[in-house]
């Protein structure tokens, strides 16, 4: 029915203004190898708890964000501009 997502640029907004892309993973180097790329494109963790996701403030400032969302409670712990990068999560 309703929920809010915080945008670091625009503040708290209804989720309808956003588009979610999924896990915020670091894109591998082009020569990182097939296995690494298969991981990046297809494999996802499915944690209960904190999860970093790419969200796009599509009907707002149109910035891509990295949103740290709890998958069980939907509480959003952090939201930052995607240009700040995401950490390397898998070897």
């Amino acid at each position, binding site marked *: 029915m309703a929920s809010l997502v915080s945008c670091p*640029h*625009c503040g*708290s*907004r*209804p989720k*309808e*203004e956003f588009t979610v892309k999924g896990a915020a993973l670091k894109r591998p180097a082009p020569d990182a190898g097939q296995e690494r790329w298969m991981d990046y494109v297809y494999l996802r963790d499915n944690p209960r708890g904190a999860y970093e996701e790419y969200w796009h403030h599509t*009907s*707002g*400032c149109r910035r891509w964000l990295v949103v740290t969302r709890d998958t069980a409670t939907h509480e959003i712990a952090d939201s930052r501009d995607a240009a700040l990068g995401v950490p390397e999560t898998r070897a």
Partner: protein
Amino acid sequence: MSKYRLIHRPALSDKQPFNASGIGLTALPEGHVIHVLAEQGADPSAMLKGLAEQGHSVRYAAPGQWYIVGDEPLADDALAALLTRLTPHAEGVDQSHGRVRILARGPMVERVLAKGSGTDLALSAFVVGRSTTTLIGHIAAHITRVEDHAFEIMVLRGFAESLWDDLAQMSAEFAA
């Protein structure tokens, strides 16, 4: 074809202004809208301030992006001059025909817009001069508080009629 009489057709030319005690809706003249895109890391604020001091209306759009808007159309040379002034730290893209502006004014304007937008538009939270892009119903629009009880609403041209119809419906209870 020098004799051909080119006709400019405003997107909202079929809409009558909506006037009610609580709220009025007016289609603003299709003058100029320049999308300003700053180079990353550049700070064009001094340049934008200069433009504002010369009477240009500058609206914040997003990080590193602004709109310069006005009721007067810009001739080719005036547009070129303005675009040049934005360089080297920013580029402009002409959106004078791509965006349509509607003025919503009246004591009920916050209440009308709250029917479409989840943005907190209370005067204390959203001061005069502030801009943002938000969904109004199903249509994204760029809104600027231009007075205590007035917002300029800028929308993609293709959605202008639809947004107008939605705003008129949202305003209807405040008529008469």
